[in-house]
């Protein structure tokens, strides 16, 4: 093999001479032209630093290469050691021979220039194209990344495009110089699951079309399956396992690789749903939502009273009995979080009825937010955080309250001495446990979990889900579980409601909806779930845009028609 890039004993450290803390220690690998290497690891494993060392962007982040070599074969056949190369040589390399795409397309695009201008600039810098030639090349580039109406979209600003579109633009820019190596640093982490599938499919196609090598960085080992030729698993700056894709995935040798593969939530298409709850025919709902509508007026300046409204939630209805989990799934912008916020009164509903169990006082619905960092006031200790719901309910702060706090802390698996600590002294998983304990302080009937495990590492995620299930059995809680992650939904839901463009398009028992999806959108959603065992299937690039939710003033949608697809399975007619 004649490798394009050959890395030997690469070590990278951060900090000044006296206090260099090593972040990458002795990494070696070879990469041939046209091959894809996946770098897998959890946050802090050194995977991004390794990749950033290759184009030496790591220098700008305060890192230094402390040892090893990186032999790069230039297009004229000569070899260059990237570890020793000076900034001038690297400038000629970046963009032209080594392209890069980043995690967050919004922050890597300049918000004050049109995307067309930004892609043209890439062509100007990397290929010396000017004027018409540059704009023609830019349009072709947009075509190449499958952006429809490329000529039109050239004039768009980044904020006018969706996350998936922006990431395509980033890819178009990275490809402007016809690089022979593309470094993709978690390019789909910030995107929805169907968009993620589209981007992955696009990268796979482009790789085949252009014959370039790729280094793909991800924390999700399930994602590498569809694209990589070889895999390198990293932990604490060390490579713990590397090899061909099938060898690593089918017969992992190292415990950490096994742990990662085991922790990935497996989506089995409705085979592994919970069967621990059967709805009694006479069960009284803990919460019943009927015809919920939430609209946000737009325009509405001083002289024009509202041009129309964003119909964020349109005629949503469901009920939830004690001990049951209803999962609401959908992509960002589908209205699932707005539905939750309306139920809690955080967003004003335009109309609709939200009824909680009759005769119930106080606040029977509580919520756990997605980001445990943001939902705990950093300046309050745990005692004050847990006391807040009780104070709000007018309960006295006495020894009874403290014993309840201790009991709940113990129940969610936090130590007793946690009471005097502050949120920053806990890990992400512990913080989410704290939020769960806080939500339970007032004995709620219903807990709304808004992407409550999405921000957690996979292994932590599994344990928090187990805790939630235990708590549900113990207290007879009803969960409204909002998520975009189908594998997690399959693990916790009894019933599933699929939301698309502000409306529920399919609702029913988890087994029915996940195993026999009827609505075209549900099918699309389920087909897009990545997985280790689905790696030999391939997705087609699907660019169906989400319909606009902006409606003219006075618009009322046609009443929904429902088709019964089974015992507990309703599908909206298309």
């Amino acid at each position, binding site marked *: 093999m004649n490798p394009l890039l050959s890395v030997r004993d690469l070590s990278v450290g951060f900090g000044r001479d006296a206090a260099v803390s090593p972040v990458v220690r002795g990494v070696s690998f070879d990469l041939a032209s046209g091959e894809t290497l996946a770098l897998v690891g959890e946050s802090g494993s050194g995977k991004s630093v390794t990749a950033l060392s290759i184009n030496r962007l790591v220098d700008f982040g305060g890192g230094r290469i402390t040892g090893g070599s990186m032999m790069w074969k230039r297009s004229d056949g000569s070899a260059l050691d990237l570890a020793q190369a000076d900034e001038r040589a690297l400038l000629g390399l970046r963009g032209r021979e080594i392209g890069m795409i980043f995690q967050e397309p919004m922050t890597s695009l300049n918000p004050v220039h049109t995307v067309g201008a930004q892609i043209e600039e890439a062509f100007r810098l990397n290929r010396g194209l000017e004027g018409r030639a540059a704009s023609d090349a830019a349009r072709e580039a947009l075509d190449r990344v499958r952006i429809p109406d490329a000529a039109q979209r050239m004039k768009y600003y980044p904020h006018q495009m969706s996350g998936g579109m922006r990431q395509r633009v980033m890819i178009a820019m990275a490809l402007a110089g016809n690089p022979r190596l593309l470094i993709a640093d978690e390019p789909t982490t910030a995107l929805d699951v169907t968009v993620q599938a589209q981007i992955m499919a696009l990268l796979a196609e482009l790789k085949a079309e252009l014959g370039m090598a790729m280094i793909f960085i991800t924390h999700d080992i399930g994602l590498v399956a569809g694209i990589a030729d070889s895999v390198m698993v990293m932990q604490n700056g060390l490579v713990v396992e590397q090899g061909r894709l099938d060898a690593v995935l089918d017969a992992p040798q190292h415990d950490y690789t096994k742990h990662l593969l085991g922790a990935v939530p497996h989506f089995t298409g409705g085979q592994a749903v919970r069967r621990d709850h059967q709805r009694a025919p006479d069960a009284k709902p803990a919460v019943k939502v009927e015809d919920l509508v939430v609209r946000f007026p737009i325009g509405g300046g001083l002289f024009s009273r509202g041009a129309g409204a964003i119909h964020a939630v349109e005629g949503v209805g469901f009920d939830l009995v004690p001990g049951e989990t209803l999962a609401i799934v959908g992509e960002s912008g589908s209205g699932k979080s707005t539905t939750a*916020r309306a139920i*809690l*009164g*955080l967003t004003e509903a335009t109309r609709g009825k939200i009824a909680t169990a009759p005769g119930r006082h*106080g*606040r029977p*619905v*509580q*919520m756990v*937010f*997605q*980001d445990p960092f*943001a*939902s*705990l*006031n*950093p*300046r*309050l200790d745990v005692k*004050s955080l847990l006391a*807040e*719901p009780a*104070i*709000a*309910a007018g309960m006295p702060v006495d020894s009874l309250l403290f014993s309840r706090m201790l009991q709940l802390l113990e129940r969610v698996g936090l130590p007793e001495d946690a009471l005097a600590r502050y949120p*920053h002294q806990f890990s992400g998983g512990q913080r989410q446990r704290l*939020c769960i304990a*806080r939500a339970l302080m*007032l004995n709620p009937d219903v807990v709304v979990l808004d992407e409550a495990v999405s921000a957690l590492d996979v292994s932590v995620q599994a344990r928090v889900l187990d805790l939630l299930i235990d708590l549900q059995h113990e207290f007879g809680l009803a969960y409204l579980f909002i998520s975009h992650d189908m594998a997690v939904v399959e693990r916790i839901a009894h019933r599933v409601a699929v939301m698309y463009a502000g409306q529920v398009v399919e609702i029913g028992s988890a087994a029915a909806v996940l195993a026999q999806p009827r609505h075209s959108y549900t099918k699309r959603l389920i087909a897009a779930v990545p997985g280790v065992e689905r790696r030999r299937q391939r997705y087609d690039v699907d660019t169906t845009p989400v319909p606009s939710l902006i409606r003219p003033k006075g618009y009322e949608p046609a009443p929904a028609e429902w088709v019964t697809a089974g015992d507990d399975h309703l599908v909206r007619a298309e």
Partner: protein
Amino acid sequence: MRILRAIAAHPTGRIGAGIILLYLLLALCGTIGFTPHDPLQQFRIDRLQGPSATYLMGTDLFGRDTASRLMVGIGQSFLIAFASVGLASLFGTIIGLLAGWWGGWLDGVFMRSMDVLLAFPAILLALLIIAIVGPGTFTSVVAIAAVYTPIFARVVRGPTLSLKRRDFVDAARTFGSSEGYILTRHLLLNLVAPLTVQVTLALAWALLTEAGLSFLGLGTQPPAPSLGLMMSEARNLMQQAPWLLVFPGLTIMLGILGFNLFGDALRDILDPRTQRRTA
């Protein structure tokens, strides 16, 4: 405790804190009358004496001891600076907090009136208020407070706008927490750091504004000593008795330097971004 230790470890913060402590000590001594000489007593035979062992910083036209007068003057300046910044931060915080929290037309009314106040140069606005009410210590406090209230309102309103959108405020709403509870526990508590920094820096400006006002004869009235007044009296004697100008001038300069160094250090220490870096 953590903050005190961090300031002691901060290279320039340490100097700033030292200067402020020294000034506080001098002001305290001056206020309780523990001075080398009586600041008001006129030693007629020792008029316009240069610095000596008896009169550390010399004497003025009336034979009064400059060092003693400076100590009392520092006390006077500190009193006005602390009182006016206290008032300004109190009203500014309330206005900024409510404007940010309620938003809408109330925000507009509050912040536009603050903008009107900010449109005037600080000293001009203070002059205007004193011209209407008449000079004196209390008027100086009110005038300087009025000048710095808008700055506090702005400093508080910005973070309030972002804090009120945070998840923990939403979470508090789902518990049914009262507005007062949310404003004090969730917003104000998170504003302590930026406010502390702003207060220290505002003390430096207030010190300078007070000196300016009394230099113009609109602050502390003679014969009571004050830093600005002493410079004003000394300006005609610049040739014969330069020490009369140099010592009050240095005192003002050093005091402002102290507060600025201290404020910058506090900003470094309380800034969450630097905290994260050290953590």
